[in-house]
């Protein structure tokens, strides 16, 4: 029997990237072992760090790896280098695509649509761009997506720039796109509160994937 239960974690404090990555892996392994195990959703923020996908080009990292100032992680996801930091809302979804649609392109487009809905709730009108996965406000990127998958069980997810130090993106070529401009949600709507955005992220994931959430 398919389990529609999803464990949801929404820490208020800043979380270390590695801890959450390990947690995701545990839930992914759980679902690989037994499909009746719960899905896992994580919504939160990370300390400043840079992550690379398994196929990432190190040339897009504009600082030396010897530079101990920066945390760099190589993880199981597609796409090029990106950056996480406080003020950026990160969401991970560990779920079994066999219960939805065994199609990674479908999943990427669905995540884009969800982000557009989330931002639309706050009157920020965004769009996707063909061939440039992510969500864009005019020519600026406001949300990034990176997915890993094993036996159709996903890992990682998406990040939305809420109110973060966009200068941190200058130390990389984000997603391998030269001269990529980035934007924050707060640039378009001053009266936002990150807790409110988290609530909407949760609500829209619940609606789109029809999960029964259990908080942990």
């Amino acid at each position, binding site marked *: 029997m398919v389990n529609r239960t999803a464990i949801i974690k929404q820490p208020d404090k800043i979380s270390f990237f*590695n801890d959450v*990555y*390990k947690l995701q892996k545990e839930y992914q392994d759980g679902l690989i072992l037994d499909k009746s195990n719960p899905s896992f959703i994580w919504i939160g923020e990370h300390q400043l760090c840079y992550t690379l*996908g*398994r*196929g990432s*080009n*190190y*040339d897009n990292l504009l600082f*030396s*790896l*010897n530079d101990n100032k920066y*945390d*760099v*992680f*190589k*993880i*199981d*996801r*597609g*796409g090029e280098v990106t950056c996480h930091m406080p003020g950026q809302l990160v969401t991970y979804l560990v779920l079994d695509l*066999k219960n939805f*649609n*065994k*199609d*990674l*392109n*479908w*999943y*990427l487009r669905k995540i884009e649509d969800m982000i557009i809905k989330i931002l639309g709730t706050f009157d920020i009108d965004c769009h996707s761009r063909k061939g440039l*996965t*992510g969500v864009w406000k005019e020519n600026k990127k406001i949300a990034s*997506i*990176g*997915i*890993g*998958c*094993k*036996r159709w069980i996903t890992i990682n997810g998406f990040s939305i720039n809420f109110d973060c130090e966009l200068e941190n993106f200058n130390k990389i070529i984000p*997603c391998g796109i030269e001269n990529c401009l980035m934007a924050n949600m707060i640039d378009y709507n001053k009266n936002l509160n990150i807790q409110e955005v988290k609530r909407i992220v949760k609500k829209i994931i619940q609606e789109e994937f029809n999960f029964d959430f259990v908080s942990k």
Partner: protein
Amino acid sequence: MSHEIFMPALSSTMTEGKIVEWLKNPGDKVERGESVLVVESDKADMDVESFQDGYLAAVLMPAGSTAPVGETIGLIVENEDEIASVQEQNKGNQPEVSTSDKLELVSNKTEEKPVVQNENIKKEEQEVVLKSEKPVPSFNSDQINAATINVSSRIIASPRAKKLASQMGVDLAKVHGSGPHGRIQADDILKAKGQPVSIPWIGEGGSPASIPGSNLGVESKQETSGNSFGNPGETVQFNTLQKAVNKNMESSLDVPCFRVGYSISTDKLDNFYKKVKQNGVTMTALLVKAVAKTLKKHPQVNSSFSENGISYPENINIAVAVAMEDGGLITPVLKEPCNTDLFELSREWKDLVKRSRSKQLEPDEYSTGTFTLSNLGMFGVDRFDAILPPGTGAILAIASSKPTVVANSDGSISVKKIMQVNLTADHRVIYGADGASFLKDLAYLIENEPGTLVS
């Protein structure tokens, strides 16, 4: 015996995928279900797992290269001592295992920790990328050319046969071709190597291509003799499987069945099949996919009788009858074909057939069908009807597709390939109109939109 690793379809629109990384080196031991490589499409990547225990013998497409969906990208062998021979045959196909590859692996192991790397490693990574930009031929052309030059007359062989010959080290000049005009086919290579032919003698086909000579309107020569389990004058006891089949067949006498038939034109389906066949797609997988997609729109035809009323299964699982060489038959089940792409479905089917012949199927792999297909097309039969298996509502009998003179609605006459199908259904749950409209939609799908069967 080597097993191929294919480029998987990560989505219905994907035509090719990029190999991000091989997680195993040639010679490494792999377990069934263990990740062997990572494939990327857009911003998503996926681990590709081994289908069996064994050893990674050859990497045919290096990290960084792209390959079309369904292409063979690596080879797995069951025994360690086979590695050397497979590697020898694929020399020139494999990217060199250099220190940079090893370094990459080391850096992977540290992925849980902040990656402490230096500029040297960065350079090595670039080397790997550069090296892999060179396209690698999927078979060793040198070997084939050499074989072809050795003889005075031209050797005609199918592309798959050439590829297999180079992989298995078979000299094409010494192989007797069984195809049209002595063309060497994949089976001939397998036979020459003394390996079992991977295509079962039943359960595969439905395409007129499998009946040589039928296009000419001439009866094809029957090479195989009919089955017999005993000698004249003997009475041979039923084996367990035959007994089980007898029981199932007898129980159908209590079911009020009716039959309804349809003639389906397969010209488009055959053309589509020709295109995807090279990617390992089987006709059975195509037919299963078409039936499952149509059943999705006709849940009544997927239902069955129970004491409490009409029972609608949660899933669509298609069982396909496969005759066993030593008597009896078994119905391996392709589960939820609508959720599996055509390439994976074909692989699942080949795996099921192989394991059913060696009697290694788990009960849920042959007893969970909600609808059954029986295909005798490969024998050239023009029509037949099937007996309903217990616990299900309907079974579809599929005959051969044959060139037929057709009178069209505008008064013109043309020759089309026509395949007759015949549905047997339990009238307590499925009525004539249900069966008829199911067949009408199935015919429409096969006749007009075979391309949609990919996903």
